[in-house]
Structures are given as C-alpha cells and as structure tokens.
C-alpha cells in the first residue's frame, strides 16, 4: 500500500509544480530556475540521513556519504546565495513602493 500512496504524492506534486509557476513572466525565468535549483538542494537532508546510517567501518560508504553531504550542502548554500543576489536586483529596480 505504501507504494500507491507514494504514486499519489508523485502525481500531485507534479501537478503542483506545473501549476505554481504557470504564469511566470519572461524576466523571471532565470531567477526562478535558480530558485528551484535551490529548492532541490533539500537533497542535503537525504544525504545527511544516508551519511548518518553509513557503516563507520566502511571507508567506501563513508567516502560516498561524505561527498553526498558535501555536494548537497554546496547545492543548497550556493543556490540560495545566487538566487538571493539575482532577486535583490529586482528590489533595487522596483524602489521601495513595492514593499
């Protein structure tokens, strides 16, 4: 039964993703790409769990886990900084009236 529940989650999440950005203006294409790049940085928490359950006596598992966490953290941190910098330009351009 687990499997079919996940299938529902897959399908509904796909609709959500499609619906949420369906009316994005052209000017936001690149920042939004960057923003969604940040959001899949959540892979970091998966990497942490995998690393946390790796066998401490297995160098192979530890090395792979280490890289998973390293890359995941870089994805999340880098994705955030880059997106924030891009979107900060919008704010500067729009004046304070938007706040």
């Amino acid at each position, binding site marked *: 039964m687990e*499997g079919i529940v996940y299938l529902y*989650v*897959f399908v509904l*999440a*796909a609709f*959500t*993703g*499609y619906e*949420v*950005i369906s009316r*994005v203006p*052209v000017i*936001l*294409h*690149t*920042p*939004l790409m960057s*923003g*969604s*790049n*940040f*959001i*899949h940085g*959540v*892979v*970091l*928490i*998966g990497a*942490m*769990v*995998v*690393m*946390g*359950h790796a066998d*401490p006596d297995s160098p*192979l*598992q*530890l090395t*792979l*886990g*280490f*890289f*998973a*966490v*390293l890359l995941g953290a*870089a*994805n*999340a*941190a*880098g*994705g955030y*900084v*880059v997106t924030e910098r*891009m*979107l*900060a*330009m*919008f*704010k500067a351009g729009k004046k304070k009236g*938007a706040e």
Partner: protein
Amino acid sequence: MKWFIDISYVAVAVVFVLGLKAMSSPATARKGIVWAGWAMIAATLVTLFWPGMQNFALMIVAMVIGGSVAWWSGKNVAMTDMPQMVAIYNGMGGGAAAAIAAVEFARGEMHGGMVALLAVLGALIGSVAFSGSCVAYAKLQGIMKKAYRFPMQNQLNVGLAAVVGILGLAIVTATDPDGWAIVLFFVLSLALGVIVTSPIGGADMPVVISLLNAFTGLAVGFEGYVLGNPALVVAGIVVGASGTLLTQLMAKAMNRPITNVLFTPMTGEAQGG
C-alpha cells in the same frame, strides 16, 4: 522525536511550494527565496536529530566545507557569471542524488523491485545532471570554447543511453548485483551527460541548464522514495515538473523548440544524419 521531524518536513514542503509561488511574481520574488532559505535551515537542523544517526563529525565537516565554499563563491562571482554558477550548483545537487544511490548500493540494502528501480533511475538522471552541468559550466566559463561534435552524434547518444538503460535494468533485476557492474553503470551515466551536452552551443545553454535542473529535481524525488523521505519526494518532483515547464517556456521565448536544442545543435545540419 521522529514524529516531530515528520511534521517539520511537512511544514518545510509547504513553505517550499509557497516560496516557489512567490518567486514567480516580481513583487514577491525576494520574499519567496528568503522563506525557502529559512525552511532549508529548519529542515537541516531537525534532520540532525534523526534517530540512530552517527558519523556526525564527518557529516559536519562535509557540510561546512561544501556550504562555505559555495556560499563564498556565490557571493563573489560577477553578476554576469551567474548562469554558470547556477549550472555548477545544480550539478552538485545531481551528484548528491547519485552519491546517495551509490551509498545505498554499497550498503547492499536494495530490496524490492520498485525501490531498486527508482534508485537506479535516480542515479542515472543524477549522474547525467552532474556531468552535463559541469560541461555547461565549462562552456559558459570559457574553459571549453568549442562545441565538440562526434560523428553520428544522435545515434551515439541513443546508443549509449540504451546501453546504460540495459545495464541499469540488469542491476535492478539481479539479486546480488556485481560491484563492477555498478561502477560501470555510474561511469557510463556520467559519460552520457558529457556526450549529450558537448555539442550544444553556449547560446542554448540556459535552456539546457534549466532542463538539467528539472532532471536533478526528478533524481532527488526518486532518491527520496528510496530513502522513504517524503520531503525529498515532494520538493524534488515539484522542481522536476516546474523545471520541465520552465524549460519549455524558455525554449519558446528563444523561439527554438527544445528538440532542436538537444538534437541539432547550432549547426543547421540536416536532421536525417
């Protein structure tokens, strides 16, 4: 403790979707990324309390190195160099998803057809996103100036993809997959990412990066299923779907169908070839 983590993940997933929604409108875009950023921090912190975790020292070291290097490089890069930074960070996400699958293979706990199938698919897509993004970065950064075209490029792409697919299926169906078959699978998946992206010119790269971004999202979603972690599934699949739509929108804005970008790269050669 586990229930608290689970509830936090639900909240994080909701904030991610709301943040993405906010980011698709200029007036609220900046708020969107800030919300999502706090959600990411919350998710990371509660995950530290996941039951039965060990290897904390190495984990923290990896997080600090990866996080601070990426933070520093993202802060200091010139505004005009942003697209390649998005590419390289995206590649790292794909690499992380592939590495998660690799750890699961190394632990030898790949039971059940569906889990193994999605682990292999996630590993394949994640590896392609990783190496493809590295090529995209190299091109935009000017390290790799020429578009390399192999003879019979399209047939080569399809052929290699078929080999990787068959190898992947063999790993899924084997009761005790051979270690070297798994290594070969990862190597060929990485090679596939390089071969597919190498011939594509720099002008088309933003569309390709967006596509690879959607790929990484899918890979993250699949590995989320393997790990039984719904937060990864929701965030990954949402990005996979929105990234696919975004890729189409970008290709349309450039007046270049996505199939042209991928299969007849900037050469105007006859499609039959």
